[in-house]
C-alpha cells in the first residue's frame, strides 16, 4: 500500500445565500480559512484538486480556470475531478491517491457551488440524455422514486417511515443550529416536519435539502509532512467508490449496490468489521431524510429494512450509539459540489476534536459519504484520530 495520508486543515465558507460575493471570492473565503487552519502557506502546497457540479449550474465552463487565482493553483498542477453529487468525495480521493502515490506531499482540495446563480433543478435534468430517460422532475423526483422503492421492497409501513424520516430531519436541523456555518438554522419538531407542505409525496418540505451557496477546502498531507506540520491530523483510514449503470431501472435502488460495495471497500481498508460499533460518528449525505434511512442500511450501520426501527430508538440521534450528521448534514446545507467535501471536512473536525458546538464527545473514527449521478455513484472516506 501507498503512503499514509492525513487531513491537516479544513476551511468552509458561511453557507447559504451568498449574493454578497462573486463566485471566485466565495471560493477564496474557504481556501483562506483552510490555509489558516493548517498553518501553512500556498508555497507548501504541491498541487490542487478542484471540483464542482457540472459547470452548467453556474454558466461558467471549466470554472477551475476562472478560480485559478482564488484556488492559489497558479504555477502548480491542478486536477479537475467531477462525479456529480459525489464530486466532494471524488476530489478528496484524487488527492489521497496523489499523496499516497508519492508524487505530492501536500495537496489542497477545493469544492464549491453557487446554486443561487442558476436553476438547480433545470440543470440537474441535463444529467439525462434527451430521449430515453426523459421525465419532468429533477432531484426530488429521483429520490422520492428511490425512497418509495425502498419502502415497497421491504414493505415498510408508511407511518413508521414517516416518523423515522421526521426524526432524521429534526436531528439534522438540531445539528444545523449547533453549526454556525450551516445554511438552515431552525428548531423543528417532528410535527413541523410531518405536516410540512408536500414536495413529491411522501417527501415534504423539511425532508428536502436547501439550495445553497458555499465552498469547502481541505488540505491533505503525507505522513511525514502531517506529523511535522500538524499537532493533530485526521488520518485517512479507508476510501471506497462505486458506480452502477446509467439506466435507473437496471439495478435495485432499494438495496443500493454502489453504497454497499463502496462502504465495504472502505471498511476493509480501515479494518472495520462492525461499523455501527466501531464508528463514533457518521456524516451521511442526506439531501432527503427518507434517503438517509436507506443509506443507513446500505452503509451497513443497521440490518436491511430496519433503519426506521433503529432511527426511532435513537441509535443515530445525538447521544445515540452512532450520531449521524451532527453538522446538520446536507439537509441544512447543500452547495452540491461541495457537500461531499464538507462531509470529509466535518469528519476531520470530529476526529480532531475541533467541531465546536457540534462536537461528538471523544470521536475517534468517522465516516463521510456522498452520492451522485442518476442515482448511480457512492463515495466513502473514513477518517480516524490515530494512524
Amino acid at each position, binding site marked *: 500500500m501507498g503512503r499514509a495520508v492525513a487531513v491537516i486543515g479544513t476551511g468552509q465558507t458561511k453557507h447559504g445565500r451568498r449574493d454578497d460575493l462573486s463566485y471566485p471570492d466565495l471560493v477564496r473565503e474557504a481556501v483562506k480559512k483552510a490555509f489558516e487552519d493548517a498553518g501553512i502557506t500556498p508555497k507548501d502546497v504541491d498541487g490542487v484538486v478542484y471540483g464542482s457540479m457540472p459547470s452548467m449550474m453556474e454558466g461558467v*465552463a471549466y470554472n477551475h480556470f476562472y478560480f485559478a487565482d482564488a484556488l492559489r493553483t*497558479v504555477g502548480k498542477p491542478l486536477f479537475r475531478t467531477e462525479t456529480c453529487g459525489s464530486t466532494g468525495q*471524488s476530489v478528496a480521493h484524487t488527492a489521497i491517491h496523489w499523496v499516497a*502515490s508519492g508524487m505530492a506531499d501536500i495537496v489542497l482540495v477545493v469544492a464549491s457551488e453557487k446554486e443561487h446563480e442558476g436553476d438547480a433543478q433545470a440543470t440537474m435534468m441535463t444529467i439525462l440524455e434527451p430521449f430515453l430517460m426523459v421525465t419532468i422532475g429533477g432531484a426530488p423526483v429521483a429520490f422520492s422514486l428511490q425512497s418509495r422503492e425502498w419502502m415497497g421492497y421491504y414493505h415498510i409501513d408508511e407511518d413508521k417511515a414517516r416518523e423515522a424520516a421526521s426524526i432524521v430531519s429534526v436531528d439534522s436541523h438540531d445539528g444545523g443550529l449547533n453549526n454556525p456555518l450551516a445554511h438552515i438554522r431552525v428548531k423543528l419538531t417532528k410535527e413541523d416536519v410531518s405536516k410540512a407542505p408536500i414536495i413529491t409525496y411522501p417527501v415534504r418540505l423539511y425532508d428536502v435539502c436547501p439550495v445553497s451557496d458555499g465552498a469547502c477546502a481541505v488540505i491533505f498531507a503525507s505522513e511525514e509532512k502531517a506529523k511535522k506540520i500538524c499537532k493533530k491530523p485526521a488520518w485517512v483510514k479507508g476510501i471506497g467508490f462505486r*458506480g452502477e449503470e446509467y439506466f435507473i431501472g437496471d439495478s435495485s435502488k432499494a438495496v443500493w449496490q454502489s453504497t454497499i460495495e463502496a462502504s465495504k471497500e472502505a471498511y476493509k481498508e480501515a479494518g472495520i468489521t462492525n461499523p455501527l460499533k466501531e464508528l463514533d460518528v457518521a456524516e451521511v449525505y442526506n439531501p432527503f431524510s427518507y434517503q438517509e434511512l436507506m443509506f443507513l442500511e446500505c452503509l451497513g450501520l443497521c440490518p436491511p429494512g430496519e433503519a426506521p426501527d433503529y432511527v426511532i430508538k435513537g441509535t443515530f440521534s445525538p447521544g445515540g450509539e452512532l450520531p449521524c450528521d451532527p453538522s446538520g448534514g446536507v439537509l441544512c446545507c447543500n452547495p452540491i459540489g461541495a457537500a461531499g467535501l464538507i462531509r470529509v471536512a466535518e469528519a476531520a473536525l470530529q476526529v480532531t476534536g475541533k467541531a465546536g458546538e457540534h462536537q461528538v464527545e471523544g470521536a475517534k473514527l468517522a465516516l463521510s459519504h456522498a452520492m451522485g449521478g442518476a442515482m448511480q455513484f457512492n463515495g466513502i472516506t473514513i477518517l480516524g484520530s490515530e494512524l
Partner: protein
Amino acid sequence: MQKVGIVEVAQSAGTESPLSLMEFTYKPVKEVLDKVGMKRDEVDMYILASTDVFHSGMSCANAFDWDASGAFMKPASREEGDAITSFVYGCMPIMEGKCDTVLVVGLIKGSENAENDTLTSFVADPFYSRPVGIQETTAAAMQMRLYLQRYGITEEQCAKVVVKNLSNALFNPYAHIKKRVSVDDVLNSERICDPLKALECAPKSEGVCAMLLASEEKAKKLTDKPVWFKGWGSSMDTFYLGDRDLLDTQLKTAAASAYKMAGISNPRKEIDIAETCEPYAFQELLWCEELGFCAQGQGGKLIDSGVTQITGELPVNPSGGVLAMNPYVARGLYRVAEAVLQIKGKAGEHQLDKKVNTALAHSTYGFCGQWQGVVILGS
C-alpha cells in the same frame, strides 16, 4: 513507488460517426480489453475523462458514460478537462501499490455540439472577458500576433506546421483530417481571425481513446513490450489574459517538473519524439521553445531546420497532432497513445525510422494554454 507500465491502447478515428456516444465509447474500451484478454471486471480501477458539460450537453457526463467505459461497480473516478490528467490519475493507484491494473478512457463526440468557439466562450468570465468576445480562437490569435511581433516569427513558418502535421496525418489511420496542403494553401486560406487563418485552426473531431495501465509485474505478464511512465508535470496560469505575458506560459514550469521526475537534463537530445497539443499551428512552435527544444524565439528556425519533421532528429507530432485530430477532451490521451505506439514500434505507416526510447506527450486547454501538462514515457 511502484513503476507504471502502459500495456495497450485503442483509439477511434476522428471522422463523424453515426454511432451513439454509448456505442462509440464501447468499441475502443472493448478493443483494449480483448487485446490483452481481460474481462471488464478484472480491471482494478477505471478513470474516465469525459467532457465538461458544455461540450456534450449532458452534465455529470460520467453518469451516461459509465456503462460504456466498463466501470460498473468498480473503483473509479472521472476527470473533467483534459484526458492527460486521467492518465496521470490512473498511474497513481498503481504507484501506491493499491491497484495492479487501471483502465483510462477519454471520450467525446465533437460532431454533436456547436462550434468550439461557441462553447469556449463559456470559459470566459461572464462580466468582462465573455462580453468582449474572448474564446479560445480569439485568445490564440492575440497570442499569435504577439509571437510574430516579438520574435519576428513569420506566417510562413507557422504555416509550415500545418503542412508538416497534415502530411504526417496521411499515414495515421486514426487522424480526422486527411489532406495534403501547401504553405500557400495555408496562407491563402480564409483569414478568420487575423492573424489566424482557417487552415491553422484544428477541426472538431470525435474521439475515444482507451488505455490499460499496469504495475511492473503485471505489465510484463500482459505484454512483451510495456512502455513505462517516467514523469509528468503540470501547471496552471492566472486567469485574466491581461495579467499574463502570453508568450511566457506555464508550460516551462510543467516541463521542468516532468524532466526533473524523468531525470532528463537535455530534452532536445534525450527526447526521441514529442506529441504536442497545437489546436492553433503557431502554438507548436511556441510550445517547442517552452519545452526546451530550442531557445526562446527560435521556434521559427526550428521548423525551418527540418528537425521536427517525421524524418528529423526530433519529430514533433508524427501522428498529425491536434491540427489533424481534435477530440477536445480526449486529445491529451491521444498524445500519450501516439507516444506509446511509437515506443512500442507499433505506429504502423507513420512509425519513426529510428529507435524510440523516450517520448514526450503534451496537452493544454484553456485560453492561450492556461493549463499545461507534460508526460514523459520511456522504453
